[in-house]
């Protein structure tokens, strides 16, 4: 599995950049699903496959829940993206990549001496890109995608530090919960017009 660690890391960088740059939910959902696969490959460096596969299944379930809801609701497309905004986000992403490459060795030395560099870099890359996305976007769907990426990045690092069945289970609940919140936001946006008042009138 260690032979796959570098391709997994490259996949993480590419998918994280795609999610950061593009706003089309179809592209982002595919990128997120691939990102979970890459994260799974990195987790297998620390955990047995049987346990690591839980993260993959949960991640794909979360992505599927959001994607299916989006397919059914068919939200309006935003075609007003300018090239300059794509370029700006691309450059911001490159800045994050550069920062991670600079920070990772120091962090490994001071905080995580037992962690493989590729795991740390992969996890930090997901966290960094997600934070950049969260800081530059206020769209509910993109926020959920970013939070899922952020948790995925943390799980990659945490898997290298600790193994716990209950923790894996609870993190799975949190990931699925986040996806459900995403579904709630999507449904809310599309169904809101049909509802005039959900408040109670005694």
């Amino acid at each position, binding site marked *: 599995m260690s032979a796959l660690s570098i391709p997994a890391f490259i996949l993480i960088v590419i998918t994280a950049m795609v999610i950061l740059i593009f706003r089309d939910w179809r592209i982002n959902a595919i990128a997120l699903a691939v990102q979970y696969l890459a994260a799974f490959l990195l987790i297998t460096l620390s955990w047995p496959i049987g346990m690591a596969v839980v993260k993959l299944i949960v991640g794909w379930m979360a992505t599927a829940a959001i994607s299916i809801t989006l397919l059914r609701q068919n939200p309006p497309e935003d075609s007003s993206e300018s090239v300059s905004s794509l370029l700006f986000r691309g450059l911001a992403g490159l800045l994050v990549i550069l920062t991670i490459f600079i920070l990772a060795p120091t962090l490994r030395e*001071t*905080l995580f001496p037992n962690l493989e560099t590729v795991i740390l870099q992969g996890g930090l890359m997901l*966290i960094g890109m997600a934070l950049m996305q*969260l800081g530059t976007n*206020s769209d*509910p769907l993109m*926020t959920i995608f*970013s*939070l899922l990426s*952020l*948790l995925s990045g*943390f799980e990659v690092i*945490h898997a290298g*530090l*600790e193994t716990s*069945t*209950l*923790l894996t*289970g*609870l*993190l799975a*609940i*949190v990931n699925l*919960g*986040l996806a*459900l*919140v995403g579904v*709630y*936001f999507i*449904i*809310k*946006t599309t*169904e*809101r017009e049909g*509802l*005039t*008042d*959900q*408040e*109670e*009138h*005694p």
Partner: protein
Amino acid sequence: MRLSTPILWVIFPLFISALAAAFYKRRLVSILLTSLTCFCLALLAAVFPENMILSISPLTLVFEDSLTILGRQITIAYEILPFITLIYAMTGLWALSSGIAGAPQMFRPISLAITSLLTSALGVEPFLYAALLIETAVLVSIPMLSPVSQKTHPGILRYLTVQTLALPLILLAGWLLAGVETLPADSPLVTQAAIVLGLGIAVWLSVFPFHSWMPMISERANPLATSFLFFIMPTTTMVFGLYFLDRYAFLRDLPELYESLSYVGVTMIIFGGAWTAFQNNLKRAFSFSVLVETGFSILAVGLSEQGGLTWMLALIPIRAIEFWLWGYLLTLIEKKTGSLEIHAVQGLARQYPILSAGLLLVQFSVAGLPLLAVFPIKIAVLTESFKLSSALGVWCFIGSLGLILFSIRLLFSLVTPKEGIVPQRWRRSEKLFEYLPALIIILLLIISGFFPNTFFSDIINILSAFNHLQ
């Protein structure tokens, strides 16, 4: 028959919450189901025997204080029951009053689910797993704060983001803490662990500058829902924080810890007070006042050596009833005026004198006005701050002045008739079922101010659950 306390105070309320969610459109059923469950659980926690054996005629129920799930334990010890009593009683009160117009339909089941999740967070072992339960409570709270009828506003996204950021920090701190327990106190790893943990708890408590979601949410969401959230989340986090202090000797012995906490607390009091003073929206002012309250709690923990933990705990029940009253009154007033901008409530006291008086009273009570419930505790915290450092005390006082300034602005606004309108005669337009609950709580606030040690003193007993903090 053998049972366990987590089944009673975690599993059972979660089940009732799911049941109430199924009946969320049947207002009366949902209110009765949630509030009765909460009050019964609170009563049971209040009278629960120390030997954990309940005899009801022929039936004898033997309780264990822990429940094992996937090799880990949830423990609800006898010592923590006064806190459980308080949070369930208050959740019951919130649920009971949620029948008023404007409250979200899902508020009742969600509030009960949040309380049971946070109860389990207090008892899970290893207790760092509580971070995941608290995150689950955050996720559950979303439909309560942003109902289907409302557009998803940036505040709710920021709340979700900020609270989710705390999760990795706390879990990472847990891993770091496990490694540093045996290290000498001057090891750099000890400081790193303390910083990561402090950052995680600061994010949870919405310490400045992680507070920005609070006014944003407060402005858009229903006041009853936000007041519940602003009470239950920081309060449980504060108690949860005590577990860290109790468990890790190196944290307790860190010389800079208490000083840093004092400065963080005072910073929150200053910023919260200053922001409150200049707010023109009552809901936003409420959220900034919450910052001041959290600041006082953190300052009290910083004054642990002077007995601050007792004050921190003593503030909890008074804060609970203040926040409830605040949420209840703001919900009612918003429904009547359509807005909670300070100009929109101008002259309100001439039509709704009891509601207006209640709002002023709770505002002055939070500000720490003498003879009101919170005064004896806040004056003790202020006095000790002055003793520790006069600068600390002065800044603390200035922050509190911000709350008083806003209260005075509110007073003028409520009694001054609107410009260009012939002044209305003073009359009472409130209905009995609207003002009676508020009136009872107002009287409770006043009486508990006159007799500070008579009410709510039981909560201090939970300190016995923390062997090293007494």
